[in-house]
């Protein structure tokens, strides 16, 4: 019996993959789809983490790969947790963390409260306020370096205009006393819009009828603010605080470009110290232990953050 060309082509074509995998269970098929993600997760996240923990227990140096690696146990952790310089960088981080959060929450909430009032040009102002957040930290670090220049910097001239102090008499990033505040100002300028947006979301989630009911009960605007607005925005505010806290704990790029950790080690935040230990002094084992300490801290804070996030979702 002769076959048509179509029948011959069909006979020569291998069976479709769907036909071949027909015998596979749904569970196996699910594993096949998930396997690449699990593999990538293990290769990119889990393996480096386990390797860092292993390195933190040795005296390994990445610039001396041929040198014998000695197992030092918990000695690296012990040295870090009794080191005055590392303690100082933790304090510099704490100063940066506390003041940026306080200022960002106060200014962010105030801006959100004002933006939430209906007025002409509301959307335009929101866009203008949000602009700094959209810039790259590298760009922000670079142009604020120019703004802080004692001779040509706009910041010094603005301060001079309001205070009468000679603009070239002080240097924001060159002074031991002013440099910690210089990085606080820049981070606040950049990230207040983020806190403002979160607060705005919280403010807009409050239904009008609650305020109407309070007004009928003759509650003053001040009382409405403290008994309705603040409690209902608080979970959002807490979320913003935790988010900025975790981000600023890891702050590196903007501060490196702005001050490089100086003058001296005044603005040397933990991530900058870590980079110096790992890639300038090449103490890989020591810096791995340091990284694990920072990781556990950030992981702990992130756990609280996720818990707070779930509470907000439940509302």
């Amino acid at each position: 019996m002769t076959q048509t060309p179509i029948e011959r082509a069909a006979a020569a074509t291998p069976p479709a993959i769907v036909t071949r995998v027909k015998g596979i269970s749904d569970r196996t098929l699910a594993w096949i789809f998930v396997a690449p993600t699990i593999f990538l997760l293990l290769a990119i996240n889990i393996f480096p983490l386990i390797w860092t923990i292993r390195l933190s227990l040795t005296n390994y140096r990445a610039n001396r790969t041929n040198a014998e690696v000695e197992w030092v146990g918990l000695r690296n952790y012990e040295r870090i947790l009794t080191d005055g310089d590392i303690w100082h960088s933790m304090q510099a981080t704490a100063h940066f963390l506390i003041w940026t959060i306080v200022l960002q929450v106060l200014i962010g909430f105030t801006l959100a409260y004002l933006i939430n009032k209906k007025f002409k040009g509301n959307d335009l102002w929101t866009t203008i306020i949000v602009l700094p957040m959209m810039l790259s930290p590298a760009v922000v670090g670079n142009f604020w370096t120019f703004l802080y220049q004692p001779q040509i910097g706009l910041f010094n001239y603005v301060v001079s205009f309001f205070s009468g102090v000679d603009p070239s008499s002080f240097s924001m990033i060159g002074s031991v006393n002013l440099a910690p505040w210089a990085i606080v100002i820049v981070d606040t300028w950049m990230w207040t819009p983020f806190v403002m947006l979160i607060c705005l979301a919280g403010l807009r989630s409050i239904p009008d009828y609650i305020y109407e009911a309070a007004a009928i009960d003759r509650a003053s605007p001040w009382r409405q603010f403290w008994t309705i607005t603040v409690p209902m925005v608080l979970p959002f505010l807490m979320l913003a605080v935790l988010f900025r806290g975790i981000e600023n704990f890891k702050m590196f790029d903007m501060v490196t470009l702005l001050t490089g950790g100086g003058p001296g080690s005044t603005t040397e935040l933990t991530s900058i110290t870590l980079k110096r230990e790992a890639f300038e002094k090449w103490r890989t084992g020591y810096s791995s232990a340091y990284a694990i300490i920072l990781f556990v801290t950030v992981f702990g804070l992130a756990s609280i953050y996720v818990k707070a996030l779930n509470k907000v979702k439940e509302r």
Partner: protein
Amino acid sequence: MTRFLNGLLRLRRGPWEMLASILIALGVVMLMQPLFLWAYTWSFLVTLTGTVMFIVVSHFPE
């Protein structure tokens, strides 16, 4: 307070998560405070305990 202690005794997630969160927060404060070097030295252990506790107790029943 009694409810909190009962929750701890009955291994309920809420109070244990609260305790773990307090430990983590305490550890972070100890890590960054400028007053006592001994607190800085022990901070990692406190944070680690809190973090591990948080992971374990998140599997407790509500």
